[in-house]
Every structure is written in C-alpha cells, then in structure tokens.
C-alpha cells in the first residue's frame, strides 16, 4: 500500500460514499481539510475563522451515529465552508466588515440550521467583500483572498473565500450568496462550480442582507453533482422568510444524474447575443464556443437570442442595490451590537462608528443609495431602475420562449490582478455584466468551468440560466456539459491548478 489517499482531492459525493462504505471516517475527512487549511490558508486567506473544534465535534458525532447504525442524511459527515455572510451561533460572523468584528450571533441562519441538521462539520467562515459589495474580495475588512490558480490574482467576489477554499482543496463544499454574481463569478475565476437558485428557493433568514430583492444563497462545489447535493440540503420553504417559495425543493441530484447520461436531444440552448463581443477576452470566447460545440455534440439545438434591455442592466443594478443596501446597512449604528466608537452624543457615536467601521466601497454605495432614494430623485433613479428590471424580465420571458436554457460566458475576462481595479469602481462593476441580469429577474443560474484561457492559463466559466423554478434544468445541462469536458480533461479542472506551496 502506497501513501494514504489524499481525501481533500475527492468530491463530496465520493466522500459520502466512502464514509458509508467504511473506508474513511468524518473525523479523518475533517482533519484532512483542517490540515490543508493550516498548510495553505496563510497564502490563500480563504477563511476568516476556522472552526476546528466544532467541526471535529460534529464529525465525531456523525461517526458514532454511523457506527451505531443510525440512518444519516446523504451529506452527513462531509465538511463544509460557510461564507461569513451567514449568521452562525457559536462562531463569529462579520460579513467581512470591521463594524461586526468579534460579534457572535445569538442565533443560526436557516441555512446554518439545515447544515447542522444534515450533520455537516462546519470548517469555518470564509472571507468576502465587505457586506458582499465587490467582485474581488479586495473589499474585505480583513484583507483579500488570493486565487489558488495565481496568488497574485483575485479569486472573484464577493464570495472569493468560498470559491478559493474549493480551488485550494481546503473544503469540498461551500455556501455562497449571489446578489449580482457573487457565487457565479468567483466560481468562474477559480475553476469551480457555483449556483444561484431561483429567488426564494433558499431561505435568506440569517443571511446578512445586501440587497434584499436580489440576494440569494446557493451552493459552491467542484462538481455539478456536488452542488446538486448541497442545493437540496439548502433549499425549501422557510416560514421565517416571507419571500421564500412555498414549493418543493427541485430535484437537482436526479437532474444531474440524468445530465451525465449525455443525451440533450430536443434541448434548445439560447446564446445571449448581448453577452459577447466588446470587452470579452478572446480566450474566454474561445472556451465558450467550445462549450457550445460540446452541447451540440450531445444533441442540443443552439439558437441565438437577443435581450436588448441587458444594456441597461448594470445601471439599474447599481441603483437598486445601493438603495436597498443603504437601508439594510442602517442598523449598523453601534446601539445594539458590533463596533462602538464612543462620542459625546448618540448621533456623533453613530457617525464615528460608521466612519471607522465601514470601508470605502460600503460608504460609496450607502451614499449612492441614500441619494437615489431621496425625495425628488426617487422616480428618476429607483423608479426608473425598477422599470428596467421589468424590461429585463420581459427579455428573459421572450428568450425562454425560444430556448430551454440561456448561456453566456460567466465573466468577460479571466481573473485580474489584485490591486488592478481597486481604484476604478466602474471597471470592477463591469465584471458582473453577464451575471447581474439573472438577479434582476430572479431566475436561477450556474457557472461551471469550461477550460483554461490559452493566453493566460487561467480558468474560464460557462454560465447557464433557466426560467424561475426550473433550477433542475441547470443541473441537467450543466452535468451533461461537465461530463463531456471532464472526459477531455481526464478529471475536474481544479486538478489542473498549480500546486500551492505548503506551509511547513
């Protein structure tokens, strides 16, 4: 027998099966990931908090339950990383902001509760742009996360920590939140998989709100099948979230299984005309085209669709998001929790606390949103943006008449260098041009790796969008494409990432 198997390289599904077969224990899996975090996270900085003892305690309980012959949920014992946007009792929660430094929530988010009920050891809380505002994790109050493919580059954002933890083999699964692409864009630039479910498909209760009408929690993984398993753990109606859909969780795992059979005959795939051309990197377009060829080879019919209102999506998004955020972030006022910078009056204390606790990007968006909602400007800004939103929804409705799913590159470019766009907010915002429309319309979207851009050797993401409530379609098409690509690559794309230096 050679060296012991490195379980961190396995998929979540493989880990679950191996535990069931008695080949490995949850404690061994969890410890392997904790060791990996200790070895590489000094460089990657995917985690803001590592929950070693808590994770191992859960793992031990799962192992004991399994030994006692207890019936366990499918992902029981599989460790997971949780984006720091989700409140977790017994672990600090900061949403990447200094204003919440040291805050331990007295309650669990619904998704946190589901993770615990499914008996998945929580490895820790992952880094993110402050309050999920950003596309690079550079806006974290605790320093940037680095892309495991190239430590000089951004891992995407806001969920750069979750995606980087997957790409760095620090966790097999992670939770993300997607307001304008914060799950899909990091997945794209780290060569991993990320899914934004239909709005309302996963409870938002306990997810620190950025823009309530756009936010959606979703699964992050290295394979479509793993994401499907996690999606089913997270999803479902929650009476604590009034906007949560009262309908059954989509059958994501079955759909992924069906997709892997490789038959897409009769499936119409619409290519969104507006999400290509100017601003799209050559290697990104090349890998996207190859993905389309794969889909055709599997029997899908590829058509072109037009969504003319997408031209206004970014502008509308940057009115709606800051408006809602300016209100959602008002509660960080020093009165009940988090940072307090004491001054002579309550107003001065609130002001000083917010001045010190919030970063520049957060302040920028609060000011933008406060202005957009002001009396006299509301109709011109927030009101107009909502109209654009309706137009985008109509564009999608028309496009879905012609196609079962819509596709595009997830991001126009491969990951840029840390610091490259930090002083140019508009360039930063453009990163999300292809992902934002789905949030404005509330529809589900997935990003999966479609290869490496020849010019820079960095990963490229392929985005699939489906009509609202049709999340399962993403998994069927995604799994079919993934299998075809894996057959070419000889395994997951993440395996092609350069090996990280391991701390002694």
């Amino acid at each position, binding site marked *: 027998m050679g060296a012991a198997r490195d379980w961190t390289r396995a998929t979540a599904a493989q880990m679950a099966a191996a535990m069931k077969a008695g080949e490995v224990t949850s404690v061994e899996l969890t410890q392997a990931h904790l060791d990996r975090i200790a070895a590489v996270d000094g460089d990657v900085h995917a985690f803001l908090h590592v929950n070693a003892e808590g994770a191992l305690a859960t793992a031990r309980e799962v192992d004991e339950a399994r030994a006692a012959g207890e019936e366990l949920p499918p992902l029981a014992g599989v460790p997971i990383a949780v984006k720091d946007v989700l409140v977790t009792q017994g672990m600090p929660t900061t949403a990447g902001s200094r204003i919440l430094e040291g805050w331990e929530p007295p*309650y669990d988010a619904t998704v946190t509760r589901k993770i615990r009920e499914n008996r998945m050891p929580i490895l820790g809380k992952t880094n993110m742009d402050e309050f999920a505002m950003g596309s690079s994790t550079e806006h974290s109050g605790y320093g940037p996360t680095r892309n495991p493919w190239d430590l000089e580059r951004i891992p995407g954002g806001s969920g750069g920590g979750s995606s980087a933890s997957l790409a760095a083999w620090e966790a097999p699964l992670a939770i993300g939140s997607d307001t304008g692409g914060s799950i899909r864009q990091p997945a794209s630039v780290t060569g991993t998989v990320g899914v934004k479910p239909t709005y309302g498909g996963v409870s938002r209760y306990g997810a620190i709100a950025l823009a*309530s009408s756009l936010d959606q929690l979703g699964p992050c993984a290295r394979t479509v099948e793993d994401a499907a398993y996690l999606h089913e753990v997270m999803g479902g109606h929650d009476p604590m979230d*009034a906007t949560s859909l009262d309908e059954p969780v989509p059958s994501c795992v079955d759909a992924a299984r069906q997709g892997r059979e490789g038959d897409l005959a009769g499936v119409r795939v619409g290519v969104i005309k507006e999400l290509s051309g100017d601003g799209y990197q050559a290697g990104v377009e090349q890998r996207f085209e190859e993905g389309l060829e794969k889909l055709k080879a599997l029997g899908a019919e590829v058509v072109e669709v037009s969504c003319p209102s997408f031209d206004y999506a970014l502008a509308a998004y940057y009115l709606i998001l800051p408006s809602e955020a300016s209100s959602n972030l008002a*509660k960080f006022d020093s009165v009940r929790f988090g940072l307090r910078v004491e001054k002579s*009056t309550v107003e001065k204390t609130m002001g000083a606390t917010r001045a010190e606790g919030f970063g520049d990007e957060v302040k920028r968006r609060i000011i933008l949103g406060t202005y957009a909602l002001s009396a006299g400007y509301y109709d011109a800004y927030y009101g107009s943006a909502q109209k654009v939103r309706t137009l985008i929804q109509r564009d999608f409705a028309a496009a879905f008449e012609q196609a079962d799913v819509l596709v595009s590159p997830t991001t126009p470019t491969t990951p840029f260098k840390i610091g490259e766009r930090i002083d140019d907010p508009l360039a930063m915002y453009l990163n999300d041009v292809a992902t934002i429309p789905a949030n404005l319309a509330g529809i589900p979207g997935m990003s999966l790796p479609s290869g490496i851009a020849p010019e820079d050797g960095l990963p490229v993401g392929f985005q699939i969008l489906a009509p609202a409530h049709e999340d399962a379609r993403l998994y069927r098409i995604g799994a079919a494409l993934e299998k075809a690509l894996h057959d070419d690559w000889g395994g997951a794309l993440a395996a092609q990432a350069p090996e990280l230096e391991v701390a002694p």
Partner: protein
Amino acid sequence: MTTMTYEQAMEQFDPVFGIEVHVELNTATKMFCGCANEFGAEPNTQVCPVCLGLPGSMPVTNQKAVESAIRLGLSLGCSIRESSRFARKNYFYPDLAKDYQISQYDEPTCFEGSLDVVLDDGEVVTVGIERAHMEEDAGKNTHKGGTGGIQGADYSLVDYNRGGVPLVEIVTKPITGMGARTAEVARAYVATIRDIVKALGISDGRMEQGSVRADVNLSLRPRAVAGESQDDVPFGKRSETKNVNSLRAIERAIHHEAARQAGLLLAGQPVIQETRHWHEDTGSTTPGRSKEEAEDYRYFPEPDLLPVEPSRAWVEELRGTIPEHPAKMRARLKEEWGFSDTDIRDAVNADALSLIADTVAAGAAPQAARKWWMGELARTANDREVALASLPVTPAQVAELQGLVDAGTINDKLARQALEGVLAGEGSPREVVESRGLEVVSDDSALEAAVDEALAAQPDVLAKIQDGKVQAAGAIVGAVMKATRGQADAGRVREIILQRAGVEG
C-alpha cells in the same frame, strides 16, 4: 403676541383640524415576529433577532394583525385595497432597531372611509377618513441624568419590548366648519375610535397605557368675508401636536393651540408649520422639530415582505364580524332597556355594556343585570384590580342568579353569598345555593317557631307592637333573620309577627 381665549380665537378664525390616531393592536404576537405583545414586562424580555433588528433577521407579517386592520378599516367605512405593499421609512433613532420602520406609505390597506361621531347633545358629525394603515411601533428610550433629554442625558436606556408591536394609524381628512365645537368634535372622534376598537376586540383601547394615542393637527384661517365662500379661503399653516394621550388632553390641546395660533396671527406673526409636544402638567405645547428641516424618510417598498393581498371573500367574511357602531348601539340599548344617560355612560366607562347585554340576552331584566355588573361585580373587579370581563363569572351565570332571586328561591342577601361562591369557583349559582344551603326558609311552621321564640325573648317589644307601635316589629324580624342565618323571607316573617301579636299589618 396677543393673548386670546379659545372662544375668542374661534370667533375670529375658522379652524381646520385633522387627527392621526395610533391604535396598538392586542394580537398575541408582534407585527413581524413571534414575540409576545404584552404591556408591562421587564425591559428587553420580549425580544428576538427580528424585533432587535439583528443582522440577517427578516420580518414576516402577522396575519392576525392584518385581519384586525381590515376589520377596523371596514368599521370606518373604508375601501380595502386588493394589494398593498409595506414600505420602509428610514431614519436613525436608538429606539428604532433596524433604523427603518416598516409602515404602509403610498398603499395603505384601508382608505377612503367616513365615521359618524355623536356629540353630547346628540348632534352627528361625519368625519372623513383618509386612510388606516399598518405599521410597527418603535421601542422606548429613557434618558437618565443630565438634562433628561436625548442630547443632554448622562446615559440612555432602550427597551425594545414595544419595538415591533402592531399599530394601525388612522388619518382623518381635514375637518372644517366645526367652529367652537372643534375641541368637542376632536374629543368625540377619538372617543368613538376607542369605543370601536374595544367593540371589535382588536385593542384594549387604554389611552393611559398608550394603546390609543392621538396626534392633533390644527390650523386657523381667516373667516370668509362677505360674498366669499369659506371653502375658498386657503388653509393656514398647521401645527401637529404629538402624543396627546387622554380625551381631556385632546380638548385642552386644541384649546391651547387655537389660542396660541390666534394670538400669533393677530399680532401679525407667522404660525410655523411644525411638530409640537404636549405637556399635560402645564396644558401647553412646545416646539419639536420644524417641518422645514424635516427628515427625508426615503420611503421605498419593503423588499423583505410580500404585498398584503386579502381575498374579496375574506374581506366579506370579515365584514360580517363588524359590530354595531358603538354610538348607535348605545342609543338602541338606552331605548330598549329604559336606561338613563348616566346608566349608559357609566356602563360604557366600566366596559360593562356588552356584559349587561349578554346577561339580558340570557334572560335577566336590564335593570337587574345592570345592578349586578355595576354594583357587586364592579366592586369585586375593583378590589381584585382586574377588568370586569375577566372576573370568573359569565353573563349567563349572572342571569341564572337573578332568576333564582326572581323565583324567590333566594333573596338579595343570599344572592350575594351565592355570587361570592361562584366567584370562588364553587360552581354555578344553583350549585352554590345547594352546596351552601342558601335557600330561603319558606316553611311557615319553622318561621312561627322562630317568631315565637324571639317574641318570648323580648316581651317588651311584643307589648309595644300590641300597643300599636308596629314599626317595633323590625327588631323581631332582625332576630328571626339572625336565627335563620338570613334565610327567611323577611316579608313573611313580618306578617307572622303581626299575626302572633294579634295586630293587623
């Protein structure tokens, strides 16, 4: 500034007023979370992540509060909107946990109604209702030390128990043409709202606990000159006097504000459009923040909640639960029962009207029912410091008790003992009468024996009676009642005494 009286002000100017009433609903839980909605608990014991506005928490609309709001709206003759969104009213204040209040802004669930208000002399004034909308209450700040105000206190305490308590805010249209009766109309309007919410059972209607609070808007405009219609004279600048929390204070606040504004106007000084605070001790108002520098609340639709969309069928079902207008019910009952104005008013003030009505419905005579509820039971409730309705006795039991009196089974004194037993949980009036052996002694031979015994013990009294001093028989009646532990029919005892003494009654 010229000093004016209210009456002088009303002679010189035409008053225009409007009232905003906040009604705290008595739902079991708060507007957007499952915390208990109860007055008077220890500070910060009825709180959760939602009403504390903790990061990540989300509101869920209390359907019972929606039901209460719709029933109130229907009682005010309002139309019920098919779909209404909540909005966020954004402002910073320590007692506002989320730093925004969830309220209805441009889409109130109840709108365009009217309410008949009956004045003391029977005149009916119809008040236009602009809207009745739902919102959540804020917590409560207490400023300690220093000036006692938020800016100058040594420290401040915040109690979030009230944060998130469901409110309905009822806004009138401008009320014009009331002249010197303005204060009276304002008072009667708020009293009617209070009576309605109590009759609906959606609020305890306790103004002293803040469960019904009023803000009074008042402005004065010049009287129309000859040939001009008063309606064509534009409204003057208004003041909004906040938190006027008793019926008497509403009248006083209007008296004060009318006189103050008239004094300014006559002196050629402007009335400033502003919020004013009411001071109960001095009967005066002082300026709050001025509307010119009012905050911009940046209202926008609350994205965390779905719109309130009551089905037509449900609204119609709720319409069927609307009780009679309290003033109309009072007039009807007064007529049917033959009560005096005082009888009715006392019963209303004691919250006894529906109890009396139910007792009458169960078979008791109206005056008898009134006597029990306003007498013995009111005293007991007062002693126990509980509401009349929460005494452990039902209107049906009171009617049963009175039935026993009417049948001669027990007398009034025994009935009070029986009631005491009922209140002590010993069972129904009939059961208590039986178990305590309270029936009156109607067996003549037993009474005769008792009378003979008493007469023998007091021969001097017997002599007096026989001497024609019939009123002396009272002493013997008393002795017999004592001997029979009150269970004798006093009238019959008297007859027997006179018989035995050989005197005609």
